């Protein structure tokens, strides 16, 4: 990312984010900026308000009569144990179905966690793609907290297997970082990527992770780390 971006580029970026034109790495970078830079966040908010005026031309339409009873029934069911299990599955489905956008924004939102240092320290991110090309996972490394954050994007859970994250220095052997999850964001402490050309990879491992210290299952996604 350009260290001294043109102010015009920033205005346009705010508009792009507000309107939803961005995807993948671009979206992650812009969403991260929105969380970390209050001036940018205000500009994004201003664009959201401007664009929201387009919704004014939408005519109101009466929903079907059963919509409210349906809603009430959902509310009534919400606190029951059975419904909690359903909602957990729904959340997993959502994480898998909605894919990269939700994962990206959720990851960026993690950046609001209080960071010990105020100085802007670059973060690292990677978009881990599999054979199909769509991002399977999005990952962030925060050197200040010394932690990785891994969000599932478009990936199917494999029964009996867990996704394990590996840091692979350029030309080196995989270093185990920790177990991620198919259904929600996982975080784990981990070593900083040292030197350029490091990649992150996810392999399928048995519960508890790889017993050998090296990947034992197939690598389902890989991506190069770059600084944000």
């Amino acid at each position: 990312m350009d260290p001294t971006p043109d102010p015009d580029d920033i205005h346009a970026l705010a508009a792009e984010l507000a309107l939803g034109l961005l995807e993948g790495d671009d979206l992650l970078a812009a969403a991260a900026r929105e969380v970390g830079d209050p001036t940018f966040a205000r500009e994004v908010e201003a664009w959201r308000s401007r664009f929201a005026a387009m919704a004014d031309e939408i005519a109101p339409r009466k929903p079907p009569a059963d919509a409210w009873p349906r809603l009430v029934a959902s509310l009534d069911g919400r606190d029951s144990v059975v419904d909690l299990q359903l909602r957990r599955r729904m959340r997993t489905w959502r994480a898998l179905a909605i894919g990269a956008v939700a994962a990206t924004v959720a990851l960026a939102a993690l950046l609001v966690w209080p960071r010990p240092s105020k100085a802007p320290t670059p973060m690292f991110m990677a978009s881990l793609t599999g054979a199909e090309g769509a991002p399977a996972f999005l990952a962030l490394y925060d050197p200040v907290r010394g932690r990785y954050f891994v969000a599932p994007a478009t990936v199917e859970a494999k029964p009996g297997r867990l996704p394990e994250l590996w840091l692979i220095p350029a030309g080196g052997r995989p270093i185990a970082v920790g177990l991620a999850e198919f259904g929600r964001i996982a975080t784990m402490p981990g070593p900083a990527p040292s030197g350029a050309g490091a990649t992150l990879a996810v392999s399928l491992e048995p519960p508890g992770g790889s017993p050998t210290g090296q990947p034992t299952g197939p690598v389902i996604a890989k991506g190069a780390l770059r600084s944000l």
Partner: protein
Amino acid sequence: MSGAAAVAADGNDVAVKRPEDRQSLTSALVAVARKDRAAFRRLYEHTSAKLFGVCLRILQDAGEAEDVLQDVYLTIWDRAGRFDPTRGVSPITWLSAIARNRAIDRVRASKTHLSRPIEFAVALADPAPSPAQNTEAAEASRRLADCLKELKAEHAAYVRAAFFDGHTYASLASANGVPLGTMKVWMRRAFLRLRSCLERLDGPHA
């Protein structure tokens, strides 16, 4: 369109009423944050027509719109506490944004937006004035409509396609046979022109 509908004799039916003013909606949201069901019903009565309209416009399918409307109000039930009246966003704008986001998520998951034609020939008519709409919102709509007219017709159409159909740079570029880089250059210029126009019409906080 007045948005008003007859109140059914059966108490189970919910009346679909005219949008309420900002203050009433704000206090309803505050109450919903405390899980006040009566307030939630009031909120539904006053906003469901608008939000269903948004879902229908974006999804263009009644069944999908009904499902997403459920999702929208459950989201509102969960997140009402996050509405911050001090931030200057009106409650109906905040609620409409939730509806739009949920509807766009659904559209993108099903990828139906990729085959929709981009509306180049949309007459950018002034939004129909609604008696309940406050002047500030009406002015904001007019400003945006006027400034969109200053753009090239195709570029204004792309802005609308992103808002109403959930298009991204990649899908816009491929739907229109335009290289991705070119689409980005066009849209970035369009945003800068929009910004200058909006500031010219109403000062830097337009």
